């Protein structure tokens, strides 16, 4: 989605607000939001929801305000809670429990787990290391992990990362589309022109659907 979250290369977005050290959560509610997002089965569509926040609001909100807005939307979309319940603040006595609560032990195990990956390594790779590729000119109206600054730009395959699920398909009818991901190197000059240093590069992992031979 060409929304404000895809901001790589933009200018004029304010200050860095650098602090040498800061607490993990600035206020207790931020920790609750982070933890709720981790224990509820809301992952599918979570990013699409964040990216759908109108640009002006997105920029005004703090990081966890975006998460909170998204949590409210997602619990309803996933059928965990009804809008009536949110408005009344009370559970409907007749509502069915959609899922059981994650225990503290399971929550911590989730945090520590090592994800099993490469479950289908026999999927053939379209591109090979060293190959010249171009970022495709795609403009999906849903979630993608292809930043727009890579569109139409020529880079080189540095590494084949193996296979992973294409995030663009997460909310589609074919949510588990596996394909190769490649580490791509773009020169800074290819991306940003003559103002960039001729020595500098940008490295980014890109799914096969984001690339075409060049």
């Amino acid at each position: 989605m060409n929304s404000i979250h895809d901001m790589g290369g933009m200018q004029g977005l304010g200050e860095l607000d650098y602090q040498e050290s800061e607490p993990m959560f600035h206020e207790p509610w931020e920790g609750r939001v982070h933890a709720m997002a981790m224990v509820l089965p809301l992952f599918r569509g979570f990013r699409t929801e964040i990216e759908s926040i109108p640009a002006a609001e997105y920029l005004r909100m703090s990081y966890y305000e975006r998460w909170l807005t998204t949590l409210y939307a997602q619990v309803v979309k996933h059928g965990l809670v009804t809008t009536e319940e949110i408005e009344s603040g009370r559970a409907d006595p007749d509502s069915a429990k959609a899922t059981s609560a994650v225990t503290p032990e399971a929550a911590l195990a989730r945090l520590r787990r090592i994800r099993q990956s490469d479950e289908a390594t026999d999927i053939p790779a379209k591109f090979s290391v060293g190959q010249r590729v171009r970022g495709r000119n795609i403009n999906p109206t849903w979630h993608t992990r292809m930043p727009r600054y890579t569109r139409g730009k020529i880079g080189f395959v540095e590494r084949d990362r193996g296979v992973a699920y294409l995030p663009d398909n997460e909310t589609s009818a074919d949510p588990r589309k596996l394909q190769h991901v490649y580490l791509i190197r773009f020169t800074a000059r290819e991306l940003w022109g003559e103002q960039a240093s001729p020595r500098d590069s940008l490295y980014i992992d890109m799914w096969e659907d984001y690339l075409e031979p060049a």
Partner: protein
Amino acid sequence: MSQSKTGSLDRRGFIKGAAAGAVAASTPGTVHAQDDHQDIPSDPALRVKALESLLVEKGLVDPAALDALVDTFENRVGPRNGAEVVARAWLDPAFKQRLLDDGTAAIAELGFSGWQGEKLTVVENTPDVHNVIVCTLCSCYPWPLLGLPPTWYKSAAYRSRAVIDPRGVVRELGLELPDDIEVRVWDSTADSRYFVLPERPAGTESMSEDELAALVTRDAMVGVAKVASPAVGVGA
């Protein structure tokens, strides 16, 4: 190097107020926080409380699980983990090689693993190459080694500028990179998470692993600073 804390807090306060206003304005039937008749409170703390108590009442959330996660983030993960990895790599060349070859497997040797660290790539700073980490699309960050990202890493300014002007951004944070060094920016937009192995500073030849780890900062492992030499007190 650090901006005034008061200034940042003022700015945060302003942003929060504006956001609460925006939420109130965009939610039909919602009025300001001081009004007793509102449906959904506009203050984030109250909105979170309302949501949590509803989810608990419905049996969808165990508050003890939230406590356990918050405690872990606040007390058990953070840049000290990453510093331990860096110090080990500086002292043990075989470990360093394993770390650069397969970051996930190497950090597991020291007991670090988990969410946002499942596919870890470690990139090494040298006299010729300087690496900078960013996530332009959200705020991807190697949690097991660095904890949750700081506000500036998540800021629109860092996310937008780190790719187009990495030298300018690190200069603003106090690090001047010479023209003849190669800067590599790593945009963490897929499953890989990135971690910078900083250069070991001069004057640390006789230091122990713990002493070395104490020198390593979060910023050096994101690539917006160097590790300061203990003799000089500031980064070269």
